[in-house]
């Protein structure tokens, strides 16, 4: 700890932050170009890389991991925690960041949004972590957002989400809605000649916002028709009525954004009702089923459906082969890796790149260094951080197979620009 930080642990954080920001201003972006592969801590004295009293010592830096490991969301968030720990291990094996090993403090958000906010405050105020990898649902992110903005923390958020947000204190490593939706709809319209769509979702903000964007795109840009749009409460387990309605409307595409336990019920009942997805009549296109969810649904129940994501475990590029291998070595052979897990894995790496570019752990400097960060080693391929704190990344369509994996049948030629506030889609 430097004198700077040890002097004022009890000082009011918000005023302290302002003063630190002024102190930090002068030395931003010093050693950014031509960085040697292994940085030695000695080259970066703690007093210089940490002027804001973060938990940085001469040989360690502490970050936070904030996910639900109990409660309903533990199902989804476990993979993210595993990916983040893997990335941290790998970074440490390479010598850490600015010569410092990463240590982490893991907190449990317990699937409860106020708990997320409380734990975020604890990580930032008591533990003074340099950054936080965390959150999964939009609700938890919205709950911690004011905390991160007040105490100037830095959050890496892994989940694909509805967009309509951009915070100076958050890096969104998943896709915002347009990145996930538009390319997939274009694909199904062009290659399958789809003309009618039935939109279906669980009843909360992400499916509703996503379907709103989908509807605008279908009606205004594809010249196709939405023949039905429906939402079911979270946890709904009886889909026979809506399946009958779908039969009656005979859409070309069922566009499904059902989540959680409902997901399992929906696909099992769809299959039991005699709708054979492998015959593509109708085509099922989803943006809410990753390899993780298929484990609960059962591959045989969703075989033939299409999913629109940026990452599938079956990607054959070298980065991904290496990633899948290390992930299974660390967490077991029966693990599967979904889109969000991969996005969570990017968090620590993006932070490392930004810290090294800034030559400092100070949040303001890291933030300034973040836009334009490129990662050639991402399992999904090359990604780049946009000025709006989201990632440029490709959109891919996968065909679900009985073994629970996806065959990638389409990917966009270029990286798709993130657009969290899409005009014409609001």
């Amino acid at each position, binding site marked *: 700890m430097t004198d700077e930080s040890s002097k004022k642990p009890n000082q009011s954080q918000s005023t302290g932050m302002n003063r630190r920001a002024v102190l930090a201003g002068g030395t931003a972006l010093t050693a950014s170009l031509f960085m040697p592969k292994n940085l030695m801590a000695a080259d970066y004295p703690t007093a210089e890389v940490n002027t804001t009293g973060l938990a940085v010592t001469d040989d360690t830096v502490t970050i936070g991991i904030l996910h639900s490991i109990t409660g309903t969301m533990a199902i989804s968030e476990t993979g993210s925690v595993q990916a983040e720990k893997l990335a941290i291990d790998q970074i440490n094996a390479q010598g850490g960041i600015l010569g410092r090993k990463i240590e982490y403090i893991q907190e449990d958000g317990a699937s409860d949004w106020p708990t997320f906010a409380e734990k975020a405050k604890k990580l930032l105020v008591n533990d003074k972590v340099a950054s936080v990898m965390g959150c999964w649902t939009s609700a938890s992110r919205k709950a911690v957002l004011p905390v991160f903005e007040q105490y100037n923390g830095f959050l890496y958020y892994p989940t694909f989400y509805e967009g309509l947000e951009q915070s100076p204190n958050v890096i969104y490593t998943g896709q915002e809605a347009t990145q996930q939706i538009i390319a997939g709809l274009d694909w199904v319209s062009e290659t399958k000649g789809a003309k009618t769509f039935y939109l279906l979702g669980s009843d909360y903000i992400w499916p509703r916002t996503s379907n709103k964007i989908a509807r605008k795109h279908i009606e205004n840009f594809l010249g196709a028709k939405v023949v039905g749009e429906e939402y079911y409460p979270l946890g709904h*387990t009886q889909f026979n009525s809506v399946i009958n309605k779908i039969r009656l409307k005979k859409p070309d595409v069922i566009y499904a954004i059902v989540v959680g*336990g409902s997901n*399992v019920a929906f696909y099992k*009942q769809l299959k039991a*009702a005699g709708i054979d997805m492998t015959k593509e009549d109708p085509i099922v296109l989803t943006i809410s089923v990753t390899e993780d969810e298929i484990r*609960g649904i*059962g591959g*045989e*129940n969703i075989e033939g459906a299409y999913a629109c994501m940026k990452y599938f475990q079956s990607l054959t590029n070298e980065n991904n082969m290496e990633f899948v291998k290390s992930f299974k070595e660390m967490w077991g052979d029966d693990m599967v890796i979904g889109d969000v897990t991969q996005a969570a894995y990017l968090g620590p790496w993006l932070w490392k790149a930004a810290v090294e570019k800034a030559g400092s752990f100070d949040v303001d400097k890291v933030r300034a260094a973040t836009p334009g960060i490129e990662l050639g080693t991402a399992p999904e391929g090359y990604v780049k951080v946009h000025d709006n704190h989201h990632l440029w990344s490709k959109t891919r369509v996968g065909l679900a197979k009985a073994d629970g994996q996806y065959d990638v049948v389409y990917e966009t030629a270029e990286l798709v620009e993130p657009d969290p506030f899409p005009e014409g889609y609001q």
Partner: protein
Amino acid sequence: MFADYSMSELGAIFAMQGFAGLILFSVFVLMALGLAIIFGQMGVINMAHGEFMILGAYVTYLVSNFFAAFLPGIFGIYFFIAMGLAFVVSGGLGLFIEWAMIRHLYKRPLDTLLATWGLSLILQQLYRSIFGAREVGVTIPDWMMGSLPLTDLIEVPINGIFVMVLAVGISVAVYVMMFRSGWGKQVRAINQNRVMAGAVGINTEWTDRLTFGIGCGVAGVAGSAFTMIGSTGPTAGQLYIVDTFLVVVFGGAASLLGTIASAFSISQAQSIMEFFLSGSMAKVLTLLTVVGILMLRPQGLFALKLRK
């Protein structure tokens, strides 16, 4: 909204929709019977009911894995063995819980509510520690998936028929036990007058324990059957608990017939409304109707005639 369709299409849809309502009815009956026994006959509000169901689902998962690994030749029939085991395991846990926890709380009904809620949290975390936080996929024998095409348009899901048959079977079994067996007579006697029942030599403690165990066992069978239509995860039980209480309370707590009648009316109402309205709105209207009726008739649809 029907102008675009031909008569035969409409006929088919109404037939299938009617069937969807019947499936929902069967699901409700299965969910609610176990709770109706415990709540109705003992007055214990078992908040851990959903977790007993999921225990049955996990037993099914284990049995399916066992058969897939060691007895793949007769995988097609594992489900019946799984259901039997689910009854035994859930019922066994029920007996133990009654002995360890519930029996100390009979005089304090509100405390059983808290205690069983705590139990549900403990069980959830236990499942999470043992089976992992993720949902597990239960492989269903092929013959149980898919549908029977009756005509070109009408297709009936086989697992739906299975759930219906099971619901009828268990209802009949519970009825026979309640109204034709010695145990049933004792349960009803205790329900009417506990002190007097004890005085004429009924072992009230053991009867209570058995009742609780049987209720939990029925929940386990329901959970086992629901692996066909729903998810199996540590918190999946929570998906059922609200509907379950709704059915039991609406039916009138102490009446098994009421439970069945209430399951029928709620399921038909919900299924019809889901067809004409959106899913969330159907749920809202169903709940509003139930609340309205309960305000007029707080004792539920069917209630024992008691001298007050």
